[in-house]
């Protein structure tokens, strides 16, 4: 699919209160543009509205005010042009790994031969060859998220939305997954909007990091990551990486303290 810029303009979201509690303002008016082929990480403390923003871009939630455009089209609902990987495990438990990856292809009516070819490609890229006939419950968390990534990529979306996809994984698996994602992204430069609260992860992967404030969320800082691609894990030990990390830690600490105080 050709790639188009993503434009988020004045997106606001408040949730109506339940019972005696007043409404919750989750997201203050937010503007963000993601250029085609860019890898943008959204970094922020827990509860600042990162998931809310991503769900609005996916079309799974509607903004209270503001608009989201992908290219010329306004986002009004979910669609296969915006692939998503969720923080929770969302493979279909009744489908094998292969059928999970093929889910969107079947939906689009892709010919079986072509489905098979796409499936083989993404099984290989995500290191899942040999597991195509497993049920999701037979996979480790890391493998489940790799399958979810393959499932989203197989649909060839214009933009990939990743909501803390590695958040539930242990540290080592997480680093392997980051390298895998980076490899895939370096190979075909698909536009990515990546939510995380892990500073290292954000710097290692992204070419731009957007820092959000504590709730109600707004974008408080943007940091360009000028580390050259292709990146290796060794980049994490360079002084440039350390400087970026120190800067982002400063930004984030303040917000985490504010989030804890409120």
């Amino acid at each position, binding site marked *: 699919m050709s790639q188009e810029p993503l434009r988020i303009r004045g997106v606001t979201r408040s949730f109506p209160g339940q019972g005696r509690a007043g409404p919750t303002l989750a997201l203050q008016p937010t503007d963000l543009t993601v250029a085609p082929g860019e890898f943008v990480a959204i970094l922020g403390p827990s509860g600042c509205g990162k998931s809310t923003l991503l769900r609005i871009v996916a*079309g*799974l939630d509607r903004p209270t005010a503001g608009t989201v455009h992908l290219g010329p089209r306004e986002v009004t609902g979910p*669609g296969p042009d915006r692939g998503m990987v*969720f923080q929770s495990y969302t493979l279909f*438990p*009744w489908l094998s790994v292969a059928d999970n990856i093929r*889910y*969107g292809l079947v939906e689009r009516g892709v010919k079986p031969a072509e489905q098979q070819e796409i499936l083989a490609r993404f099984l290989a890229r995500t290191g899942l060859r040999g597991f195509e006939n497993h049920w999701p419950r037979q996979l480790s968390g890391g493998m489940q998220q790799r399958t979810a990534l393959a*499932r989203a990529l197989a649909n060839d979306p214009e933009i990939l939305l990743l909501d803390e996809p590695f958040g539930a994984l242990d540290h080592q698996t997480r680093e392997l997954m980051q390298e895998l994602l980076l490899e895939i992204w370096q190979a075909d430069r698909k536009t990515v909007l990546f939510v995380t609260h892990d500073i290292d992860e954000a710097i290692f992967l992204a070419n731009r990091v957007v820092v959000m404030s504590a709730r109600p969320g707004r974008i408080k800082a943007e940091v360009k990551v000028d580390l050259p691609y292709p990146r290796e894990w060794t980049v994490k030990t360079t002084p440039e990486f350390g400087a970026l990390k120190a800067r982002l830690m400063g930004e984030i600490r303040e917000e985490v303290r504010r989030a804890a105080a409120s």
Partner: protein
Amino acid sequence: MMRPLQPVGAGARILLGTAFFAAFLGLWAAVSYGGVVPALFLASPGRTLASGWALLAEYGFAFDIGVTVWRVVGGFLLAALVAVPLGLLMGAFKPVEAFFEPFLSFARYLPASAFIPLLILWAGVGEAQKLAVIVIGSVFQLVIMVAVIAGGTRRDLVEAAYTLGSRPLSILRRVVIPAAAPQVAEALRLVLGWAWTYVIVAELVGASSGIGHMIMDSQRLLDTGQMIFGIVTIGVIGLVTDLLFKAANRKLFPWAAL
């Protein structure tokens, strides 16, 4: 040592399950052979078996069993045919639920047995009346159970399907239905058990064949052996169908098993 939630081995499971049957049989034998309860009220296991043999050999009890099984299966299938699709639609589409739910909540409290006199008036004492009792007894409960199951479909799976390009109808077909299927099968297994209760009630009143009819006839002759044999027959058939159902579910939904 027993620990909470620790699984039990297959061998031990069968042994324990059989042990209770043995204990039950032992108690029955002790009470009846020991003369604690007069034979008029409680036939001994041996007497029950002999009555059962006579029933099968001389009175064509096999035909009665066949008739009752046919009614149960017929009524159950009719109920399932209506309840499962309706329940799935209700669970998936909230306006459909809002339309049917209040009436169903009322209807499911209507006691099926109380309908028997009315049904005899409407449909006579034929097969239609027997099936109607079973359908009335199970269909409303089943619709509500299926609706709750379908309504409990994991939201995140539905959302994942949307981001993969599914439209509402394909969400129903490719997410809601497969996600609900194992639990719906469990609900069907449960309801089949109830269908057995209703069929016997229907056969106790105004029937000329069936296990319930035989039990009623035996009461007139004060033959507790035949009555007990009839009841045990129902239990055995229930146990066997239950095992078959469970085996089928495991085979059909291997992804859900542990």
